């Protein structure tokens, strides 16, 4: 097995010697060990305190005590969220971990972008570029998008569904830690196999193939999958079995439905890739599954996209649901059509399991499959169009819309989703896909949607919940508006420049490029840096306001139990809680 294409010394970049790697492994293990011990210490000392308090009140089971105390309460975000395992604490963990990964992966993204100022990789080495490429995509999807998705589900559903009980806390907590361990190990692996993980590239354990510690990255991915599968099943159980008796499925808030569809998609589409990753791990030692001699190299790509297409919808569907909820809060009315919201998202679930081949149209699937997958890709647009119509119609028919920051983020999300969706339809035309596959046009397509919707709606919800998270602080509304305008403009500039460049054939996932693509790269760099600045404004706003004294009560309109399910309640006078809806000064 000669996977070393070029001798180490022959190429610039990382100088590799055996001692070097042994040292590195030891340092990583030491850091992990120290961290684990520290967490163990914190948890056990906190647990003791909790047990003592529980004992005083006559509880024998401290977790039961915690849940009795915590259940249904508004929860402030502080360190206790890592100790308690009621649904709200778990939710907070996921939300804040997700946002932490957003900033980590975001900084990788900005560095990649900036490194492309020159057509040749002079700013950072191609090896580093490839690592950033892999880490950015994987962490954004699995740790940020899925993380905040689970976070909002765990955090909001107990209020929305008025849970009868909350008894899967320990398992939820285990699922969270497994998922987090997976994410952390993925970073530590410094893998550069891209988020596709295609063998044989991913089997090349060199800095010039796909990374020295790729085996670790594969284990990390398995851990992430175990974590999200467990959490999905638990949340589905919470929704179906634990919601209040007087809440039939037909009256559930739309957000709860969006989570149901998302999680069904997770548990029904991730098994193929989990199996594929297991086989891939085998292949590190004795390549039998995805080897050229057995003519099965593409099989991994197929297992990957079988999950790979659903995951892109998984990363937006919870935000579909949140958009429905936010719109109702800011217009004070019901959603235009409750039933078509559910139908739209449900059919999206079904169709998006049938289009994965549109990511492999040029791989040699054969003409029949190309016909099939391109045609289903047109069909999958209809469910999305149903939701887009519903949002716009709700806004259109509203008496008034309050345009504070969260609502601005939502309007921008809808706008960007339409643009990204149109680009998706273009990509589904085979004549265009032959040109645009593998180019920045694809990058533009999904960044419109991810930055506009996944990031934008996360920020909208974060702002709305901020008084509760922070224990009664308010953020600065002017800075929040700046955050919105800067992010929206930067995101548009970046994705638009990519789309134009990609239209002309500018390849993506490259550390260098033909000099004639420089204008599109440069304007995308400006856009990317602007997005980064926008998030710094957000951090500054949160940090400074969190340091001030609490000035308001910790209610937020987003999870006030009385007016939920918003989908079926009458429009309520909004004046009641204007401050909390705005969340700002």
């Amino acid at each position, binding site marked *: 097995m000669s996977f070393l*294409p070029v001798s180490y010394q022959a*190429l610039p970049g990382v100088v590799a010697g055996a001692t070097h790697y042994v040292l590195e492994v030891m340092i990583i293990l030491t850091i992990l060990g120290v961290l684990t011990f520290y967490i163990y210490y914190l948890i056990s000392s906190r647990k003791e305190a909790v047990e003592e308090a529980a004992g005083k009140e006559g509880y024998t089971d401290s977790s039961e005590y915690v849940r009795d105390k915590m259940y249904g309460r508004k929860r402030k975000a502080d360190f206790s969220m890592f100790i308690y395992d009621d649904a709200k604490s778990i939710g907070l963990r996921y939300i804040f971990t997700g946002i932490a990964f957003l900033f980590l992966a975001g900084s990788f993204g900005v560095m990649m972008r900036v490194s492309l100022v020159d057509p040749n*990789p002079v700013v950072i080495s*191609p*090896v580093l570029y*490839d690592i950033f490429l892999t880490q950015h995509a994987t962490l954004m999807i699995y740790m940020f998008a899925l993380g905040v998705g689970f976070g909002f589900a765990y955090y909001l559903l107990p209020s929305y569904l008025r849970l009868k009980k909350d008894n899967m806390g320990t398992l939820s907590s285990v699922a969270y830690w497994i998922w987090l361990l997976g994410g952390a190990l993925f970073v530590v692996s410094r893998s550069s196999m*891209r988020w*596709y993980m*295609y063998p*044989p*590239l991913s089997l*090349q354990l060199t*800095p*010039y*193939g796909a990374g020295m510690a790729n085996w670790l990255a594969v284990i990390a991915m398995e851990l992430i999958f175990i974590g999200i599968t467990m959490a999905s099943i638990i949340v589905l159980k919470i929704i179906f079995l634990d919601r209040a008796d007087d809440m039939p499925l037909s009256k559930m808030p739309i957000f709860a439905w969006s989570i149901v569809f998302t999680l069904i998609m997770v548990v029904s589409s991730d098994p193929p890739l989990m199996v594929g990753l297991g086989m891939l791990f085998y292949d590190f030692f004795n390549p039998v599954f995805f*080897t*050229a*001699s057995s*003519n099965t*190299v*593409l099989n991994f790509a197929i297992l990957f996209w079988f999950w790979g297409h659903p995951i892109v919808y998984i990363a937006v569907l919870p935000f579909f649901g949140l958009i429905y909820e936010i719109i109702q809060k800011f217009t004070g009315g019901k959603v*235009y*059509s409750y039933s*078509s919201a559910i139908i739209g998202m449900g059919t999206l679930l079904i169709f998006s399991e049938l289009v994965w081949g549109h990511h*492999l149209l*040029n*791989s*040699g699937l*054969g*003409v029949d499959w*190309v*016909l099939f997958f*391109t*045609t289903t890709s*047109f*069909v999958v*647009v*209809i469910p999305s*169009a*149903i939701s887009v*119509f519903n949002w716009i*119609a709700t806004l259109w028919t509203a008496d008034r819309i309050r345009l504070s920051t969260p609502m601005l983020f939502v309007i921008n999300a809808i706008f960007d989703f339409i643009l990204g969706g149109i680009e998706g*339809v273009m990509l*589904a*035309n*085979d*004549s265009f896909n*032959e*040109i645009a*596959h*593998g*180019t920045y046009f694809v990058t533009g397509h999904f960044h419109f949607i991810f930055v506009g919707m996944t990031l934008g709606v996360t920020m909208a919800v974060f702002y709305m919940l901020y008084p509760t998270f922070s224990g009664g602080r308010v953020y600065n509304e002017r800075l929040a508006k700046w955050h919105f305008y800067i992010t929206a403009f930067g995101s548009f500039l970046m994705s638009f420049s990519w789309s134009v460049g990609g239209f*002309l*054939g500018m*390849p*993506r*996932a*490259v*550390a260098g*490029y033909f000099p004639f693509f420089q204008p599109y790269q440069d304007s995308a760099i400006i856009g990317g840096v602007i997005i980064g600045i926008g998030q710094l404004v957000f951090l500054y706003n949160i940090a400074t306001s969190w340091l001030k004294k609490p000035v308001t009560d910790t209610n937020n309109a987003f999870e006030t139990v009385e007016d939920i399910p918003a989908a079926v309640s009458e429009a309520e006078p909004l004046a009641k809680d204007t401050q909390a809806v705005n969340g700002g000064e």
Partner: protein
Amino acid sequence: MSPKGKTELMWLLGVSAILVVSAVANIAFIDGHTANIAQPTDLQTVPANSTIINVTGSQWVWEFQIGNQTYFNSGNGHSGALPLVLNHTYTFEVTSKDVIHDLSIPEFGVQSYAVPGHENQVSFKPTKLGYYYFECVEYCGFEHYEMRGYIDVTNGGAS
């Protein structure tokens, strides 16, 4: 039907009309260009009068073999642009020696994965004179970005 439902139906009919037009155009394209779509060599016959070019990707070189002539392109050097003749049909038979690559010539809508142990075939006819670039668009490791080069479409006379 309620007026609400009617508005929604109108919108959906409108969107569907656009989608149906795109879908039909797409099907027509695929039907009319089956040779232009990458597919396994054994599933497809080579179009008559076409010149076969054997394309091999490897880390990180593209090699083109026409008869006994070889052209190559990598970050470390190249053998000049790949010469093609205007309005002549070419058939690429694309494969790889190591990992998955993807050969793309955006200007002519030619794209095919290069998969180890598997040969894909794609035919096309250059219809414009001049220099056009090709590139690898499937990430394949360290020097992926340098697997790129030019084709030179001339009036020929040679082949």
